[in-house]
């Protein structure tokens, strides 16, 4: 894009894909600097306070959720490749994932609560897998 006069512009089609992203990036830059100017002191105070993330959060449950989810995502296609086009990658990985998450989120682990978590981990993926993959033929990992 070139400016012939203050308002007149000529658009070069071959580079037209960069016009809008460039304008938006410039606006974002200006806005970011404005936010830093108007709120910089508050941000600095929060950071220097030492109470900034991840202090004060439940490390076990927060990072455990992320770690289990990453493992679940990595495992699904691998298991799915062993049983192609069956949705079993999803099914077989969802059972341990649900059980592990349910157990992680439990505050009081007793035989009863673990049993409920286990039954839930078995039933929920089975129902979803059966309805989507078997009844509706929707592809699952």
């Amino acid at each position, binding site marked *: 894009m070139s400016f012939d006069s203050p308002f007149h512009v000529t658009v070069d089609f071959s580079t037209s*894909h960069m016009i809008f992203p460039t304008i938006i990036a410039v606006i974002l830059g200006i806005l970011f600097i404005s936010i830093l100017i108007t709120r910089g002191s508050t941000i600095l105070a929060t950071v220097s306070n030492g109470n900034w993330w991840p202090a004060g959060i439940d490390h076990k449950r927060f990072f455990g959720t992320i770690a289990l989810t990453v493992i679940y995502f990595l495992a699904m296609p691998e298991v799915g490749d062993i049983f192609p086009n069956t949705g079993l990658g999803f099914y077989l990985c969802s059972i341990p994932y649900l059980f592990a998450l349910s157990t992680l989120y439990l505050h009081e682990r007793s035989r009863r609560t673990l049993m409920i978590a286990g039954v839930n981990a078995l039933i929920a993926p089975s129902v979803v897998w059966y309805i989507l993959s078997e009844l509706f033929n929707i592809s699952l990992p």
Partner: protein
Amino acid sequence: MELLSILTPLFFGLVAAGTVIGIIFGAIPGMTATMAVAVCLPLTYSLGLENGLALLLGLYVGGISGGLVPAILLNIPGTPSSITTTLDGYPMTQNGEGERALKIGITSSLVGGLISLAALYLFAPALADFAIKFSYIEKFLIIFFALTVMAALSNSLLVGIFSGFLGVFISLIGAYDISRGGNGELRLVPEFLEYYLEGGFSLLPVLIGLFGLSTILIDAEDGMKEGKGLSGVKIGGKPFKLSVFKGQIINLIRSSSIGTFVGILPGVGGSAASILAYSQEKNFSKNPEKFGKGAPAGVIASESANNGLTGGALVPLLSLGIPGDSTTAILIGAFTLQGVQVGPLFIGNNPITWDAMIIAMLAANIIMFLVMVLAIRHIAKVVTVPKNILFPIILMMCVVGAYTINYGVMFDVWTLLIFGLFGYLAHKIGLEIAPFIIGFILGPSAEIYFVKSLESFGTLSIFFTKSWIAALLWVLIVLSIAFSVSVARKKKRMADNMDA
């Protein structure tokens, strides 16, 4: 006759199922109507457009309505839009009027829903007929206006605008779409991701990540604490009588209309609707001192306004293709899934679908009312479902939704994780998700309208001089910015006064 062939028992069964599931989602604190629609979207694949919409609209109406249950019984808003319901609903429960408060809220929700549905039926076709005449320039200005309105109603104007533009920027990742007149060149994509990001990030995994996974991460950070139970909560007590609405008709109509109007404004959301309606009712009330202590008028204002939002938010979606709130943004996904584009031509080209949507909304409101009135004591127990059972199922459903959206692409599942983490981060640093989402959805259209206008006319001044509509839109844009600056100054002055 064609319409009658769509209105099958399955159609109404799906509306009912959606409404009940939506009520359950709405009743569980931390889960929203948006989440319900996002999680259930993949189920609509094999249902067809009308049946799929029946399910989703039921979820939408039910999800908004269910939020009143924990708001009234536990003082926890089930959804952001029921925040003002807690102010008088919970004191009523403490006074032994829990069931009465619930039924007042349910009836108000029904009235709000029906008034907004009437507004949708009357205004959306008229607005669409008007919008058909819009050129790229007016369409671009409407998107610009939508972004300024959203930013104006954010907690911070600057952060709101930043979030909206960030959404636009992320939406531009990928190729400049040839099918819409672009040159097909990639931009903003790292070389190793070119294969995956040629078409940019898919909308649905982004939405599911932002509203599903991030919500769970926020709760996990907090230790997944179980909410307080219903033990000690007295649901029964003073019986509900319709006479409570005597003298409240104006409140009902005004609050429903405020909800509908706020719904029509893009991206504003239900909490703004209920706060506005509640404060208006308090201002006009002869007994403002009773508010906050268990005044039925407060519950009526809040609940009729937040259900008034449901029809209102569909007006810009179906007439302009601009979602009115985050839930209707996800409904765009349902249309995309079925290969239907929403915009000014939608109602004219799809009259059967349009009629089916109105009937589904009507049925959803009636079913919501009946289910909640008849089974309110059972529904109330839903608020105590343990999170350790529920949240893993929701995460699994998020994965299913993300994976199936493009018929089995694992990168979409990773997109879900990326945007789940982004949503969590946004929550931590105070970015506004609603402007981000609307920016993300409207970004590619804004780009096409802007660049094509420049290619055609060769001058920037055309955005001001094209038509009287363009001039009017500029006036509205300036007004919304002026309004937000004035509100921000007022807030600052109040904060300064409090510090002093």
